[in-house]
């Protein structure tokens, strides 16, 4: 019960962050793909960069073990294509669907039911998915394993690289910035 309550609280925090950044708006997602608005990319890159630092600290202190498992290229490629089309059609990301429902977008309810049906369909076809494995499985699943290094040695470098990319995006944005309608809190 405590774990469920804790998850609920974490979810509320995520919901607030998604609403406050407005990345739950489909227009933000589409404008990202059209390179007109970089809000989504900045949020994702910084969330990944910060996660890398958190995971590195946990991995360095032996609290966290980064799992490495083999994966099938065919299934991952096919799944990514379907996922990509799902995002392009709906303008929603898996994490933003529930936030869209929360702010009252009725259409997000249909997306939600679609996702659930997709999950059920996956379970039904799971036994036959092995037949589409026409590409070999990868035995090395993570970049640090490929480099034969510990996770905490590699991840901070990538984290800094991602932060630098965000910094560059911000610089480009500032040079080409038009007056914004939105009122932003200056942190």
């Amino acid at each position, binding site marked *: 019960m405590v774990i469920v309550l804790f998850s609920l609280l974490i979810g509320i925090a995520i919901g607030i962050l998604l609403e406050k950044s407005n990345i739950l708006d489909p227009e933000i997602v589409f404008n990202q793909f059209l390179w007109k608005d970089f809000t989504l990319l900045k949020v994702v890159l910084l969330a990944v960069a910060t996660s890398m630092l958190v995971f590195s600290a946990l991995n360095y202190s032996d609290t966290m073990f*980064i799992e490495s498992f083999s994966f099938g290229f065919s299934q991952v490629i096919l799944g990514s294509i379907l996922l990509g089309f799902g*995002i392009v059609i709906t303008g929603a990301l898996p994490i933003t669907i529930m936030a869209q429902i929360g702010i009252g977008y009725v259409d997000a309810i249909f997306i939600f039911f679609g996702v659930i049906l997709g999950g059920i369909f996956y379970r039904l076809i799971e036994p036959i998915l092995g037949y589409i494995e026409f590409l070999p499985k990868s035995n090395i699943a993570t970049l640090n394993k490929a480099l034969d290094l510990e996770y905490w040695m590699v991840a901070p470098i990538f984290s800094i690289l991602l932060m630098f990319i965000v910094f560059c995006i911000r610089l480009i944005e500032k040079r080409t910035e038009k007056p914004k309608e939105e009122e932003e809190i200056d942190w």
Partner: protein
Amino acid sequence: MDSSKHILWPARIVGVFLGLLQYPIYIVLEKTLNSSGGYTVISNWLLQELNIPFDQDISLGITWWSVAMLAGISLGAFFSSRMSKRKFRIYSGFWKETAEDSLLKRIFLGSIGGFLMGLGLRMAGDGTNFEELSSIAKLQFHSMLTIGIIFAIGIFFTRRWYSSRI
């Protein structure tokens, strides 16, 4: 867009806070941020409840905390939008534009898009769940491949399908 007077937080602040949430999530749950796990749990629970025949050798792994997280995301967005007095809309202006204001078209597009997303999420995770941010942060190759493909499809098809309507 419905947020012309809506107060937004800078993307950098939101990104950093989302990343920092990984710490309490891992310490308490020994998991990483993964919203798609909740959808999987609901699908699996429905499979069980509706007595739909499926391969019984495959573990369903129903963990309600991930569903609670999904519910929390919804609640958080609701409270936040109410507190900031966000103008209420029942759909995004963008969906109205692309579906030409047809409710049936929006229901169809939403359901099909959601279905592809649900199926794709499971396949992209190769049977587990595609953990979005967390699996890229773990430097897992399959997630980097997935993000690359999503962006390629997004850039190519958004330009072809929607650029004239935005």
